[in-house]
């Protein structure tokens, strides 16, 4: 047998090949990881946005049928409220509007979830948690007694209500963070007009 039939890779060739394969694999891993992170982040963002939109709509539909004179507390710029007590009309009897049981939408005591309640504190109390990813403060707001995010409100919490005549402006920030990774925040705002 000749020396040519016994051809193979030299150590250097093998090492170079290994290095190149390693680089390619590393790069591949980085790309896949980035894609995965982006996918996760986008998914979380989309989910939060979807949740915020749904929650804002839910709060809006609940408040449309209320009467501004029956809404408490008194929440005007620059001191918003994070809880709103209201009543909606059920119809008319003897020419007068009939009002339903007192309802409330607000932040829980821990400040991280939004709940709806009816007859709170009474024997027939009902409460439902509508969302539990609420941020402590509205996006870009810092607890310092000053309006940091330029919306003319001071230290507004993750859910805030401000009234102006028959209009109610609802602001909401949802957030989600995973371990030590970046926190994703989504903020939604809408202004509704009470129809009664």
């Amino acid at each position: 047998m000749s020396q040519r039939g016994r051809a193979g890779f030299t150590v250097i060739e093998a090492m170079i090949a290994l290095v190149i394969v390693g680089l390619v694999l590393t790069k591949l891993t980085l790309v896949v990881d980035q894609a995965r992170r982006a996918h996760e982040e986008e998914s979380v963002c989309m989910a939060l946005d979807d949740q915020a939109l749904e929650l804002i709509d839910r709060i809006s539909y609940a408040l449309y049928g209320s009467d501004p004179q029956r809404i408490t507390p008194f929440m005007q710029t620059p001191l918003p409220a994070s809880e709103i007590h209201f009543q909606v009309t059920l119809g008319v009897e003897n020419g007068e509007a009939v009002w339903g049981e007192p309802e409330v939408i607000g932040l829980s005591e821990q400040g991280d979830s939004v709940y709806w309640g009816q007859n709170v504190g009474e024997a027939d109390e009902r409460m439902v948690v509508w969302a539990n990813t609420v941020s402590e403060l509205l996006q870009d707001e810092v607890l310092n007694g000053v309006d940091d995010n330029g919306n003319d409100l001071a230290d507004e919490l993750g859910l805030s209500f401000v009234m102006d005549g028959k209009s109610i402006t609802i602001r909401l920030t949802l957030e989600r963070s995973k371990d030590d990774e970046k926190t994703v925040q989504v903020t939604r705002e809408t202004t509704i007009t009470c129809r009664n």
Partner: protein
Amino acid sequence: MRSGKGTGRRAALAVLVIGMAAGLAAPLVAQGGRASASAQTPAAIARLFDEARTPQELRRRLSTAGPEAVPILFRCLVDDHYPPAGGGERAALTPEVRAVVFDVLCERPRRELTSFLEELAALPPSTSERLEAQCVVGRFGSGDHARLLARLTLEADPSAPIVPELRAGFTEALSAMLARDGAAVSRMRELVADLPPRLSGSIVDALATVPSDEATRCLASLLGRSTGLDPLILARLAERGRAGVHIDENTQEAVRRYLGSADPAILCAAAHTAGELRDCEAVEVLVQLVDHPEERVRSSVFAALASISGLAYGSDGARWTSWYHAEMRWWDEEADALLVRIERGHGAEFARAARQAMEHRLFRDRIAEAFAQALRRNNLEEVRLSCRALGQLGSTTAVRGLLECMQASDPSVREAAWKALQSITGSDLPPESDSWTRLNG
């Protein structure tokens, strides 16, 4: 030479004597002139009317007339005709001429007018004469002429009713006098005591037109003097509350006492007044009245509670009661800490305390006092926040502090204070602080 000097001295002496004589004689001449003018006959005064071509000229001519012109001018106004000029038909006064005659008459020296009107009051005068006399007193009079005004209004017969037009004239004239002579307000208490009760209502109405603190105190001090007068006084105090005039604690206390009355009419009036005064201290008693057997009392109470609290619980007595108890619980358990945070807190703590304070309007005056102290801080952000919070609370307690803020050097603080004052008083005056100071006495 010597004779020349002597001649000069004599001439100077003569000039001096003549000058002194002229100076002494001038007043006599003037007096004589006036005496000759004051001796003008009615015909002469009538000629003044005829000779004047314009109202301005008439005014000039009539101004030179003597005291005898007073009754003639007065008669013109009463009859609404030119003065008689030797028989014949007299023409009616035109509105311009009437205004001139009235002005000239009222510009006569006070003692002349007073003595004439005193004589007139003693006559007794007719209703039209009384009405005209009231207008004259209202134009020139001060607090010293209030009793004269009363004599001109009342008939000699104490049982005779007051003609409604005379009553209205009395009120209008007294209002004008009080507006002119603010010091007379405090004497209205004696006037009510001294004059017949038939005029008490008119005196109260006249006092109600004076927007000063003194007038408010005077009105409040009249409460209790006569049960018949109380509803009117309560109504007038309610008007002041509605106008945003600051009502002191003594006045509110005086009104509050009437919430214990057994008379439903008085109860309604007191509840209405307490509501207009936004008297938070009255809520305790009002809540006890939510189950009153009289429907009109209940509706007054509910309206008052709505006015004081800003809530719209309608006629739901149970809801009002539970709200009140919740507020009292909060006041007993949490209010002190909150007020301390408002008075001493800074930054986020202050903002949070402010937000929580807005939820408890029942104690707005006390909370407003705490915010009023914050108006003196150096932190402009906190001062602005305090101004806005005070505007939302609507308590008149903070008006003086806000008035001081309207003179601050920072324009944003001035604007915040102005908007707060607009919200509290309901007035839309421009931000120049002078007008606000006048508004609040």
